[in-house]
């Protein structure tokens, strides 16, 4: 049992809990309105948005799983670096348009936009459902991050009793998310990100210095893991998997509801654009976090008998916590562990808010067949955010962790199927709503089929092209099918003379800057 670490950890946890509840009074608004509870009144400036999106996108699971993949598989795990580099130019070109049109029409979710753009309720429900099912396992995986850290502190009892710290952490999170909405994770993200930066800076300075520099660390890495393998007579290699994983993940990231929620809470279009130049700072941190996997290899964390039981239970996901325990003084291990655990709370809160917004606005309202009052809408979303968290918790407690990991892997393949409707929809009205539903269905079936062919163990599918095998990210292959079907069905419907649904947006809506617009509904 690491008592000093546990005490530091607990103190930091109490601090963020206080912040979480106090956040209800921060930039005060009427929390009985969904726009206030679920988007914090769209008032966040450049700095808060930077912390919020950073805390939101670079999740605890990422911080644990990326170095775990580098630790276990080597260079391929570094795909997170080109992935989180590519995402920003792409988002810069596309998503300011979503911010502008949403600001103009009061959209809270991407599904709101799709409904208005294509006049297709089916498409809107499909986009909302995809967002929710892709987010649920992602929330569950944040819990895995907390669980690994709590076990690392020495709470190693098994069974339901062993889950008590996790249940407490999540109950507290659920309570302040319910009362403060998006303001809670925004304020907590500040603490989380500072702790992460401090931890990574310390690790990158202390550990290489102790081991004799980066040269010594990299020389401990087996040669075959150090670089990617290019296609050759010996086999297709993993370079194509690397590039397609990076590209596909970059295209998918801002389709996730929690990313959209973070984006739409920004005060202006410029805040969004500026952040696309500033957020890469987190990608640099992520690159060094990925290298922690090699530091864990170089220090032979797995050889320490103190870690044997936890490596058996969590596999490579325990590599980084073990590294921190071995290399840091106990109190600082507490800080690092708190960074990881709080790093799980921020995205878990935003994800549950985003899923609740989707359910309330785009599924429940349609289902009920009547519009809801503002207070009723906000109240429904708050209750749904609780349900979502209880669901994720039950998932982790009662089902094997492998299910959550496999479902999250599927989630990436699923969420990218909303790309034609959302991303292309921001530029063109050419597609028919029903054609996009057909494309979505084709993409879901093909993508899920590709993952099933790999027994849900990997999202890399060995595509056979005329005798050539190209291993690539199934999400990318499946979204190409989706695009082709969407285009073909659109052409077919045009030939039949089918009418497009009503588009209530105007071309100028996509350029609103928001700074001086009349939208300042006080």
């Amino acid at each position: 049992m690491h008592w000093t670490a546990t005490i530091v950890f607990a103190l930091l946890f109490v601090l963020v809990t206080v912040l979480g509840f106090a956040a209800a009074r921060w930039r005060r608004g009427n929390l009985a309105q969904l726009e206030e509870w679920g988007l914090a009144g769209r008032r966040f400036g450049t700095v808060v948005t930077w912390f919020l999106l950073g805390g939101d996108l670079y999740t605890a699971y990422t911080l644990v799983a990326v170095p775990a993949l580098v630790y276990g598989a080597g260079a391929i795990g570094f795909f997170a670096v080109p992935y989180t580099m590519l995402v920003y130019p792409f988002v810069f070109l596309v998503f300011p348009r979503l911010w502008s049109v949403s600001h103009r029409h009061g959209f809270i979710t991407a599904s709101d936009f799709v409904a208005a753009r294509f006049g297709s309720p089916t498409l809107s429900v499909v986009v909302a459902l995809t967002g929710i099912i892709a987010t649920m396992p992602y929330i569950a995986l944040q819990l895995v991050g907390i669980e690994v850290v709590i076990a690392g502190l020495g709470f190693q009892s098994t069974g339901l009793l062993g889950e008590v710290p996790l249940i407490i952490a999540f109950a507290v999170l659920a309570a302040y998310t319910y009362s403060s909405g998006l303001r809670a994770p925004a304020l907590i993200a500040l603490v989380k990100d500072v702790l992460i930066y401090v931890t990574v800076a310390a690790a990158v300075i202390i550990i290489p210095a102790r081991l004799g520099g980066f040269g010594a660390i990299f020389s401990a890495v087996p040669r075959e893991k150090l670089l990617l393998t290019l296609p050759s007579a010996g086999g297709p290699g993993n370079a194509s998997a690397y590039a397609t994983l990076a590209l596909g993940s970059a295209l998918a990231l801002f389709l996730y509801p929690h990313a959209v929620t973070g984006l739409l809470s920004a005060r202006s279009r410029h805040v969004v654009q500026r952040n696309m130049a500033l957020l890469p700072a987190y990608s640099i941190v992520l690159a060094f976090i990925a290298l922690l996997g090699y530091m864990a290899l170089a220090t032979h964390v797995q050889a320490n008998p103190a870690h044997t039981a936890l490596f058996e239970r969590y596999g490579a996901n325990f590599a980084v916590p073990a590294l921190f325990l071995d290399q840091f003084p106990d109190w600082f291990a507490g800080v690092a562990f708190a960074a990881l655990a709080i790093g799980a709370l921020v995205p878990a809160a935003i994800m549950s808010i985003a899923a609740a917004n989707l359910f309330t606005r785009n599924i429940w309202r349609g289902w009920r067949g009547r519009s809801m009052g503002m207070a009723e809408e906000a109240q429904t979303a708050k209750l749904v955010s609780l349900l979502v968290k209880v669901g994720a918790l039950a998932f982790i407690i009662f089902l094997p962790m492998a299910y959550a990991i496999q479902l999250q892997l599927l989630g990436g393949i699923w969420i990218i199927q909303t790309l034609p409707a959302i991303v292309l929809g921001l530029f063109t009205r050419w597609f028919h709503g029903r054609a996009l539903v057909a494309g979505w269905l084709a993409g879901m079936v093909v993508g899920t089929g590709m993952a099933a062919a790999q027994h849900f163990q990997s999202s890399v599918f060995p595509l056979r092209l005329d005798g050539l095998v190209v291993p690539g990210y199934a999400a990318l292959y499946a979204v190409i099918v989706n695009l082709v079907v969407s285009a073909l069905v659109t052409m077919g419907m045009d030939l039949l003379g089918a009418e497009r649904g009503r588009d209530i947006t105007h071309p100028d809506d996509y350029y609103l800057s928001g700074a001086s617009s009349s939208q300042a509904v006080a």
Partner: protein
Amino acid sequence: MTASARTRRSWIGLLFLVVTVVALWVPLYNRTEPALAGMPFFYWFQIAWIVAGAGAVALAYALSARR
């Protein structure tokens, strides 16, 4: 949109295309030499490229914010 705004947009598009192609063109950086402070080329180049990508976006923002 004015003609100069269109020109700016094409420059931004070209810039982003270069940034993207380099990041995805694995044979370009899949090597250990030249190493930097003990870090193989594969790793330090991709970290440096994050900075290049951020610079491209910052430039694009500066260009697009100009009226």
